[in-house]
């Protein structure tokens, strides 16, 4: 079980005054303080960890965010930012003495400039909301986390989120141009702008992936891209996880970069088929979804090359989607994959380690062995082209022993990732989940340097202080 810092007793004692202070700043329906109405805010996409906050504030404008931040700073109250609450690392997990600032009411698209291919959106706009807004004009926003339907751009910036199509287009960091932030003191600051590579230090790079620890993001300027001429997905089924893993490595090392290269194993294939009816091969042990894009000729050429590589690995099936509906169903299944696992297990822990693709077969084999040792099932669904693993450890949260085993199993997987030259997190962030493993990856000096950056932005450690750093290091 994860430890949380001691709540400050003197803050808890001022609870009513703090709530009254918030109410003076925000409309009546924007402050939540009754215990039963706070409960649904106690957790995010990682429900194993829960903590009811002191109060929730739901500002609707940057100015309201600034007012709340200035107030909390003055009062010495901790703040936990929250977007859609889909974090899988407990990034939005509250603290007993903290205010949760929910950004979901900042949900407007402020401007779209097709000539310069730039969109300015508020932090609470959903990831897919950007693409939905521009797609009729033939554009899209490239990073596509599987949670893109629900997760918000402010959360994406703070987790530097990735997705299936990031193999070609890069992750959030590669598609950002500017931010409007509110500092911990409540000051509004603009960073970057509607052009590439702003002058001065790369503040944008520093803030991307900062997990709500440096500032509150209220507006985001993103690059939008022209939609490709067309795209087609191929489904390749294999006899074993390791074989599919080897095929991934063969594709990547041949120099072909498909636009997406995704992996699912047997449990995942079956759960996703039940949800999406995509025609996944139910007789395969492992499935690769390989998408290529461009003109029809380009697609044919790439698919031909990929097919040749796949055939070396004795596939049980190879099928190319023939219609847009088929492709849509294939992606619907893949993007709903984690949720779909809810059909076969009441709870899961989703891991997020990254490894060199050459080690895929070996690591998948070792995860399989661990699964047998721990007696817990695993579903593997991940961005294979990037070597970004997502083993989902299935367990029963109503059984404490099962929960404990799942946590230990998860830690072992992440240590394995580091051991083979990878890292703890590909895209879900450290949050609270991987916090205590940070010293497996980083030396004390490295951790200290990161801590000092946090202190420079937030000397009082008021913003999301219980995440990312091992608790002892954070307190130091």
């Amino acid at each position: 079980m994860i430890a949380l810092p001691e709540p400050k007793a003197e803050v808890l004692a001022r609870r009513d005054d703090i709530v009254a202070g918030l109410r003076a700043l925000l409309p009546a329906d924007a402050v939540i303080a009754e215990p039963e109405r706070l409960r649904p805010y106690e957790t995010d996409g990682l429900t194993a960890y829960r903590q009811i906050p002191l109060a929730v504030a739901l500002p609707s404008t940057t100015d309201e965010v600034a007012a709340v931040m200035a107030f909390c700073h003055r009062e010495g109250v901790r703040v936990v930012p929250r977007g859609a609450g889909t974090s899988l690392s407990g990034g939005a997990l509250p603290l007993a003495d903290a205010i949760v600032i929910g950004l979901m009411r900042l949900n407007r698209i402020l401007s779209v400039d097709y000539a310069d291919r730039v969109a300015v959106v508020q932090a609470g706009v959903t990831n897919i909301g950007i693409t939905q807004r521009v797609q009729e004009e033939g554009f899209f926003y490239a990073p596509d986390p599987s949670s893109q339907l629900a997760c918000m751009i402010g959360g994406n910036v703070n987790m530097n989120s990735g997705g299936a199509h990031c193999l070609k287009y890069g992750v959030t960091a590669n598609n950002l141009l500017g931010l409007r932030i509110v500092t911990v003191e409540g000051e509004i600051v603009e960073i970057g702008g509607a052009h590439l590579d702003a002058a001065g230090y790369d503040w944008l790079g520093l803030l991307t992936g900062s997990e709500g620890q440096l500032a509150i993001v209220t507006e985001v300027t993103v690059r939008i891209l022209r939609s490709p001429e067309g795209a087609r997905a191929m489904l390749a089924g294999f006899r074993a996880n390791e074989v599919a893993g080897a095929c991934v490595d063969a594709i990547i090392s041949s120099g072909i970069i498909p636009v997406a290269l995704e992996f699912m194993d047997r449990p995942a294939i079956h759960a996703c088929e039940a949800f999406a009816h995509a025609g996944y091969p139910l007789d395969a042990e492992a499935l690769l979804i390989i998408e290529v894009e461009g003109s029809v000729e380009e697609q044919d050429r790439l698919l031909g090359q990929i097919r040749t590589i796949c055939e070396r690995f004795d596939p049980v099936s190879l099928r190319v989607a023939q219609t847009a509906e088929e492709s849509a169903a294939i992606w619907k299944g893949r993007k709903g994959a984690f949720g779909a696992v809810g059909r076969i297990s009441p709870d899961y822990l989703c891991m997020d380690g990254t490894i060199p693709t050459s080690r895929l077969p070996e690591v998948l084999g070792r995860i399989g062995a661990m699964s047998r040792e721990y007696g817990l099932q695993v579903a593997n669904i991940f961005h294979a082209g990037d070597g970004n693993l997502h083993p989902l450890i299935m367990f029963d949260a109503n059984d404490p022993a099962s929960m404990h085993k799942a946590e230990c199993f998860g830690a072992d997987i992440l240590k394995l990732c580091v051991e083979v030259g990878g890292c703890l997190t590909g895209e879900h962030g450290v949050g609270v989940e991987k916090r205590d493993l940070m010293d497996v990856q980083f030396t004390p000096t490295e951790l200290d340097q990161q801590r000092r950056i946090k202190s420079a932005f937030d000397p009082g450690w008021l913003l999301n202080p219980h995440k990312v750093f091992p608790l002892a290091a954070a307190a130091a």
Partner: protein
Amino acid sequence: MQTNFSPDQLRDPELAESNTILRTCVHCGFCTATCPTFVLLGDELDSPRGRIYLIKDMLESGGPATEPVVRHVDRCLSCLSCMTTCPSGVHYMHLVDHARTHIENTYRRPLPERVLRSVLALVLPRPWLMRLALLGAGVARPFRSLLPGKGMMAQRLRALLALAPRRLPPPSAAQSPQVHRAEGKRRGRVALLTGCAQQVLAPEINEATIRLLTRLGIEVVIPRGMGCCGALTHHMGKHEPAMAAARANLAAWSAEAEGEGLDAVIINTSGCGTTVKDYGFMFRAEPEPWRGRAERISALAMDVSEYLSRIGYAPTRPAPALTVAYHAACSLQHGQKITVEPKALLRRAGFTVVEPAEGHLCCGSAGTYNMMQPAIATRLRERKLANLAARRPDLVAAGNIGCITQLSGGDFPLVHTIELLDWMAGGPAPASLGPLLAARAA
């Protein structure tokens, strides 16, 4: 998701069912994005995931419902958009139904609200009372802006009066108990649920259904003893009246099914269709013969568009040059997962079919929702009308009387899909298209 019920609680079959549903949820949050109230209000508590959490807490505690929980559960439209979105297959409908019954049984609403809910539960399912009430409302309607007060109750009463139609159509003889013989050789035999509110507000929908089906060789039975499907009271958490209404229908339809036989029970009000298809679940713990009857009837229940796709439909008139925006009623698209059939039929009939953006979002009608939550319902209505208008349709078609009433009064006429299909297959043009067609002819 973890739950916390005692073994004792889990012996209660209702709680055990809800526990199973809750444990399917993995809290991924996908549902928040497609929930109309979350989109409007931006608060986890007004999202399905938030409500699931509130309900879980309420049921686990075992205590009476409290005001905050009631407030957020009341704001749920039961549009079931969340169930379309949910990858895990959480049966939100059964969970929220359970919560509503728990609220109705344990929570005392303020007196004016209690009275209003009781009046609606009494009047809406009874066509003759409904007719009387609407005549009264018609008299009061012009004075609705004089209703004092800004409170929720005054808003509700104004909304109620605004919904009352200006002119009430005369009762239609076709809807009373009888057998409508098939034209030509009989190909099938169905019972038609004539509904409660719909038969008063828009008898032309049942008339069109009967005309079209009999013309296609289907015998249409209007059995005696059939009435409201029970959805209205069911969604208010009034369990017993809902079960009584359902029982009356089960008896009427089973007599036909076990007698001369039925190929289907046809429903042309999708809100009712969702409920009739759920009779099997509602009666799962009831003694025989009810349980078996409910299962059989649920399996026979079909939306009229579903049935027409099965038996085949072809127009007999030349295609009109009209663009129809198809408005997907939530009870059809989310409740019954019927999405392609109505559009395919309209295209087959010769119409150009367009769909609005945000088609998955509810129009705010949602049974009695537009009377109980007028502020949210009005915002959803305006959003829907704007999305429809953006497609520049000549008219809008929907498969549910609730949506038709809710969206009327905009810039385009609203008709039931079946009226258009009947028209193109030899029936009269829908009366509400009169001005449009006259303008076209001129």
